[in-house]
């Protein structure tokens, strides 16, 4: 077994949520991290070529990032995340992730670094990271320290984003909330395009994942006791925390996201007093279609703000 020096982190899926934590953790333990570049057309093309047709766009993109990392690191970090609580699970794809990647790239024989947790094993994040440290041959003390440090850095990172967003919310521009999975919102090829289009129209872009995560999670329980997915809970909670502060909401989903298909339908049913646009992104070659829809959405908001459709006193 070759010694591990460089750990590859694909810039996809949960890296957009927990990436800072992972990177800091590994670097504190003395490893070098290789992170794949921002998503683009080429990465998506490569990923799509080895994925099952029906799989979701972010997963195809993820495979592209994995391919990029092959040969550039000693091991690729692909955690298996089930969730920490029965009502805070992950989409089943995360349960399958390491095995899935290993089977897809069987011929390339890539080495995968993984750590696994499930809601039914009643574990904590710290325990999971201790296990990961042990896998890498580090002592418990070292690992614990690295985890504590990484956790703090992650929280500080989120705090900064939160503060920036709070500041933006006070401005006078039209504010539109992009609600969706972090790996859709912040992927350069997916949500990045949407933000670019909105900014071009002089609109302030607000994100659901730049909000107080724990607060959002708690808030989501007011709305649904049974919703099983952690990320959708965070989206829903943040959405209801922010909805009075924004002028419109765009529900961004990547085709064909399983949890979003059901939850976004529910959200549309619950959000009756604010303009909502439901956008589903696919691997299209152009953005013209999306652009047209967003333009008319912003037009509606502008019109309504100006007194528009006369439903103010409804």
């Amino acid at each position, binding site marked *: 077994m070759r010694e591990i020096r460089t750990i590859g982190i694909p810039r996809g899926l949960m890296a957009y949520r927990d990436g800072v934590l992972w990177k800091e953790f590994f670097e504190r333990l003395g490893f070098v991290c290789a992170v794949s570049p921002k998503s683009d057309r080429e990465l998506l093309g490569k990923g799509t070529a080895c994925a*099952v047709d*029906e*799989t*979701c766009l972010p997963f195809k993109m993820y495979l592209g990032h994995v391919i990029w990392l092959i040969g550039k690191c000693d091991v690729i970090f692909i955690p*298996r995340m089930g969730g920490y609580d*029965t*009502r805070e699970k992950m*989409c*089943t*794809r995360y*349960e*399958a992730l*390491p*095995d*899935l990647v290993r*089977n*897809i790239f*069987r011929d390339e024989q890539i080495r995968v670094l993984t750590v*696994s947790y*499930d809601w039914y094993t009643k574990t904590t994040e710290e325990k999971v990271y201790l296990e990961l440290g042990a896998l890498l041959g580090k002592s418990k003390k070292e690992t614990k320290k690295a985890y504590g440090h990484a956790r703090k850095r992650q929280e500080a990172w989120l705090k900064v984003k939160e503060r920036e967003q709070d500041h933006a919310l006070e401005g006078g521009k039209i504010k539109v909330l992009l609600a969706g999975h972090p790996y859709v919102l912040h992927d350069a090829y997916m949500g990045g395009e949407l933000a670019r289009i909105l900014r071009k129209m002089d609109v302030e872009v607000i994100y659901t994942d730049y909000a107080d995560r724990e607060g959002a999670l708690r808030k989501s329980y007011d709305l*649904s*006791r*049974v*919703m*099983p*997915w952690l990320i959708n809970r965070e989206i829903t909670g943040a959405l209801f925390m922010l909805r009075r502060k924004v002028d419109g909401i765009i529900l961004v989903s990547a*085709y*064909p996201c*399983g*949890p979003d*298909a*059901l*939850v*976004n*339908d*529910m959200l549309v*049913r619950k959000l009756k007093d604010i303009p909502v646009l439901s956008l*589903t992104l696919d691997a299209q070659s152009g953005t013209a279609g999306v652009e047209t829809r967003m333009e008319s959405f912003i037009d509606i908001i502008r019109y309504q703000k100006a007194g528009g459709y006369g439903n103010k006193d409804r």
Partner: protein
Amino acid sequence: MEIRIDNRRKIAFPRISHYGYAIKYIVEQGLGAEYVLLPPATKKTAELGSKYSPDYACAPFKHSLGSLIEALEAGAEVLVETGGLCRLDYYGALQKEIIRELGYKCEFINLAEYMSGKKKEWLKLARHLSPKLKPARFTTGAYEGVKMAEYMDEIEAVYYQNAAFETEKGSYRKAYRKFLLKMQTAEDWQEIRAGYQEVKQAFDGIGMRKPERPVRIGVVGEYFTIMDEHSNQFLQEKLVRLGASVHRFLNVTNCHFRAKEPTLRPRIKAYADYNMGPTTTWTVNAALDYAKQGFDGIIHVKSFGCTPEMDAIPLLQNISRDYRIPVLYLSYDTQESDTGLDTRLEAFYDMLERKKKVMR
């Protein structure tokens, strides 16, 4: 004015294959409530479900929503929806909302809320559904209902494995349908038992002309679509008519009462280290089993967008390569016609038959 001859509550559950009979038995004989047993699903059911469902919800969501609406039209007062390990866990919440918005008045019980709950909660629920509940009677009723499901699974398996080789066309079908009718109307344990023994004897008496090496096809895949004939457009029946012996591991008995996931997983160690999702281990294990036993082909069945089953596909592709066994992948939504399926199945079967003749 409606005349009520009894004051039992009318309970409905979405259709799932023939298991409605067992559920009916448990509800009526165990719980002491009335069960709204729906006639077999039609195209209308799927249309109704699709009409009110989100576009890319999985087909089982649409089918079960269609069933629930039909049950309401048939007079159901209490709707029950189950929970599970995938999107199924959120079916109830959304279906409840959809049905409310449609303006139906009913009680909606979402079992997902009880899944991680305690026994006491379940008992409370049972008492709520049937105030005069007798716990002892409920236990017996539930046990007998489960046993009925096991019998139905056993008989169904025999049917699909052998029906293609009967000498007199239709004799298997006749006995099988008679058995299902008995299960539908059974009111006590004796009737269940008698029906079971009768069909076994009937099956034994059917003349067979089984070739020495028949074409054997294993069907694997997603829980609902694979079991519910209407959802998979009578896939197994179609294969039987083409002349194949059809095997299917996944049924309620094997999934819930026999094989436990952690005990099966070591058997697929060459392909997976972890539990990859609700039924993925069963799918991969069954496929591997068929491959090792020298089956001629495997058919993988799922509804469009089913994440866990989609994630089983790369593993099946590897099994297919390692054991040189052809795999046909079928992904169902709510289709209008089954001509496309017929063509694909015929081509697949012909290919298997030919391969068998040429490559001994």
